[in-house]
């Protein structure tokens, strides 16, 4: 969807009715509708898309969440759940006729059980706060999105978020055990368990990454892992992006699963270096950061093997962090790539396709060509180990036409990701942003199945409607319905 579409007007009478119904059980400070009060909620991390919500509800506990949902169900008001609002695909974009349900006040860590290595937390708890609380027991919560100081664990579950370390330690879906969640009608669902599996269908997997379309999550039991005793990082420089891509494949082929394996291209190192002084070799076309963690013995072994593979793959320079300070400095640039993009350009647009690693050279070359064609700079910084690209397109929203060009450039990158056998989104979700690209990735019957799955949870289609899955009608209108072997006649079209 384009940021240049829409903007729904708010119906004042309806707004009064809904706010009054919510104020019947929530304090006035927890039901917002004045323009200045709801303004902070008009967008999430994808700020190009904005929409004022009709009403914002800020329940403080599970019982209040349930009552908000029951009330909205009675009044037939759509609901958009929101965690910390750091999402990058507009998943928490409000609706002009809907209630924005913020889970931010549910921010208690309810229990940490060191022996079973689990933590039971409310959805508004920040990702990093879990690891901070578990640190006393030498445990931590593994998925570490770059936004971890701000993003909520509820949002992480809704997006199936990843992080630098997910190649070795998995995504959110691999690190949670149990959810308490409410359907749009306010019915409690207890999903998963304290055991490693649960009876019946794997609804835990289905809810993870469901972008707030199936249920509102009010409690999460996460797994905690023992903190690795030691971590060390190899920084390898290459005079050619293709060689760096090959080195990534060689590392994996050598039987190594690094704790992190990230790539930055020359534009990126050039942009971040002035801010972080990491000492990156600025003449390199690409650098790889390759981390080993574990016991001191394991790390010593693995670092030697990593170094050897990098050199054999044609690295022009290989450095190994000699202290924790140096390791952190190696990573500083990678962790600050987004803010750095924000400093070298008025605006940037972050893409999130995942591709098979063998297609890296082809895709990076094609992105460079598109960058020339559109006259827009693009920084490539990404989770190389799992092929999750984050091209950052640099643009200036104040220049007429630049946003539209940027969106077109971005859509082409996504199409390219699909064409090489990948996906339009590795971790940021579809939201509103990539909804049209879903028409490229999936065929009509698959999209119809997604809608049917949603209906099994939300028959009225009132929980975060319009996100994540395009209507077949929309795909057909866009002329982007993917016709497979010429056999599809959109049999399901009239249903939507």
């Amino acid at each position, binding site marked *: 969807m384009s940021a240049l579409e829409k903007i729904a007007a708010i119906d004042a009478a309806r707004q009064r009715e809904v706010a009054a119904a919510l104020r019947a059980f929530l304090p006035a400070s927890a039901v917002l509708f004045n323009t200045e009060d709801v303004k902070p909620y008009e967008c999430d991390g994808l700020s190009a898309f904005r929409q004022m919500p009709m009403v914002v509800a800020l329940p403080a506990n599970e019982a209040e969440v349930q009552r908000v949902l029951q009330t909205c169900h009675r009044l037939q008001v759509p609901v958009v759940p929101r965690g910390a609002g750091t999402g990058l695909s507009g998943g928490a974009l409000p609706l002009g006729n809907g209630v924005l349900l913020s889970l931010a006040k549910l921010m208690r860590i309810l229990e940490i059980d*060191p*022996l079973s*290595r689990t933590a039971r937390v409310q959805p508004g708890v920040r990702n990093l706060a879990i690891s901070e609380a578990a640190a006393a*027991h030498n445990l931590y919560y593994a998925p570490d999105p770059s936004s971890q100081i701000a993003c909520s664990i509820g949002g992480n579950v809704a*997006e199936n978020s990843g992080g630098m370390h997910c190649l070795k330690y998995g995504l959110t*879906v691999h690190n949670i055990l149990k959810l308490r969640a409410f359907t749009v009608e306010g019915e409690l*669902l*207890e999903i998963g*368990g*304290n*055991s*490693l*599996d*649960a*009876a*019946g*269908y*794997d*609804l835990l*997997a*289905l809810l993870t*990454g469901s972008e707030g379309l*199936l249920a509102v999550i009010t409690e999460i039991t996460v797994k905690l892992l*023992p903190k*690795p005793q030691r971590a060390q990082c190899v920084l390898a420089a290459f005079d050619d992006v293709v060689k760096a891509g090959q080195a990534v494949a060689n590392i*994996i*082929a050598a*039987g190594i*699963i690094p704790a992190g394996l990230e790539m930055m291209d020359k534009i990126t190192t050039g942009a971040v270096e002035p801010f972080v002084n990491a000492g990156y070799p600025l003449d390199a076309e690409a650098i790889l950061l390759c981390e080993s963690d*574990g*016991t001191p*013995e*394991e790390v010593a*072994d693995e670092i030697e093997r990593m170094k050897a593979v990098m050199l054999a793959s044609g690295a022009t320079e290989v450095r190994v962090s000699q202290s924790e300070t140096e390791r952190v400095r190696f990573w500083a640039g990678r962790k600050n790539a987004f803010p750095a993009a924000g400093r070298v350009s008025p605006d940037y647009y972050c893409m999130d396709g*995942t591709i*098979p690693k*063998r297609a890296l050279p082809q895709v990076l070359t094609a992105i460079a060509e598109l960058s020339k064609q559109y006259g827009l700079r693009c920084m490539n910084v990404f989770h190389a180990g*799992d*092929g*999750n690209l984050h091209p950052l397109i640099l643009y200036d929203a104040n220049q007429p036409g630049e946003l539209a060009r940027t969106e077109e450039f971005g859509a082409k990158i996504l199409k390219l990701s699909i064409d090489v056998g*990948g*996906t339009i*989104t*590795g*971790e940021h*979700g*579809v939201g509103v942003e990539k909804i049209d690209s879903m028409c490229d*990735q*999936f*065929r009509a*019957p*698959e999209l119809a*199945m*997604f809608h049917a*799955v949603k*209906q*099994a*949870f939300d028959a009225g289609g009132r929980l975060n409607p319009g996100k*994540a*899955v395009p209507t077949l009608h929309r795909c057909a209108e866009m002329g982007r319905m993917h016709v497979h072997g010429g056999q599809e006649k959109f049999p399901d079209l009239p249903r939507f």
Partner: protein
Amino acid sequence: MEPIVQQLTETLRQANANKTPLRIVGGGTKDFYGNPTAGETLSTGAYRGIIDYEPSELVLTARAGTPLTEIESALREKGQMLAFEPPHFGEGSTLGGIIAAGLSGPRRPYAGAVRDLVLGVRLLDGTGEDLKFGGQVMKNVAGFDVSRLMAGAMGTLGVILEVSLKTLPLPPAEVTLHQQRNEADAIRLMNEWAGQPLPISATCWTHGDLRIRLSGAASAVEAARRKLGGTVVDAPLAGAFWRGVRDHTDAYFTRGGALWRLAVKSTAPVIVLPGVQRIEWSGALRWLQTDASVATIREAAHRAGGHATLFRADANTNPVINNGGVFHPLSPALAVIHRKLKRTFDPAGILNPGRIYPGM
């Protein structure tokens, strides 16, 4: 479309139209598992073969009828494995059956379950529609995660045609230790160890014998061996032992009688029930051969934070099976969602009807 898929599609379309129940069979090695289901046999065994395997991508894609042994030897050749250590339960285990049954072996708590390693599926739903979800890449959040939903659904939501799985490198070194421990100590120790950075890849306790498998870099395995202590089990014996645990060919499983599988909170205290127990997964999996009543067992599993499955029935527990009571009952709210999902994927209710729950 491949002729076999064409045929399967045709069968499904007709069965859907005529409401003919179908019993989906891969290698038939897990016929004992789940509630019995009646219907015309729909065999996926002929749709076989590895489609794509690129070790440096850590991804393997194969057809549902591919024998597990074929997949495992292709992986071994490249120094890789299926980290969830799938149980074989017989010669002819196929990939489709492994996914549908959703069962994982001894390495599960340390490297992930079958569902954790599923990246994508191609399936035929109950109307014969050919659908693809997920993909061949490690990170993919486009659309609901229907692929993982297929793991453990016992074939009731679709006929799995193809699966992409994440693969992992084989550990360079492996050592199994043996210690004598009582049950309570074993549970406590297994949990304490799991909270430390040790390369544990399997644990198993029966009758005072605790075995711990360490896998990883040689140096790390050696350091852990010194730290944990106990006697080192001869490598060939250890290999055979863990295969026996995984495939239920171990003496523990072959004595006959009803076998219950209790998946519980790993720290759940000793479960006091008559019969013989085996503990795996650092305490999170308890096998139980018992003649205790179904209600008693379910209650015990619930108290231990988990659920109980009647894994293999005997003459006494056959009625449980015949009443569709193999799996732990669902809460009413979840049962509603389950029924709706079943209808979504299989509107005529023809796919392995009742195999997971009555009416599903």
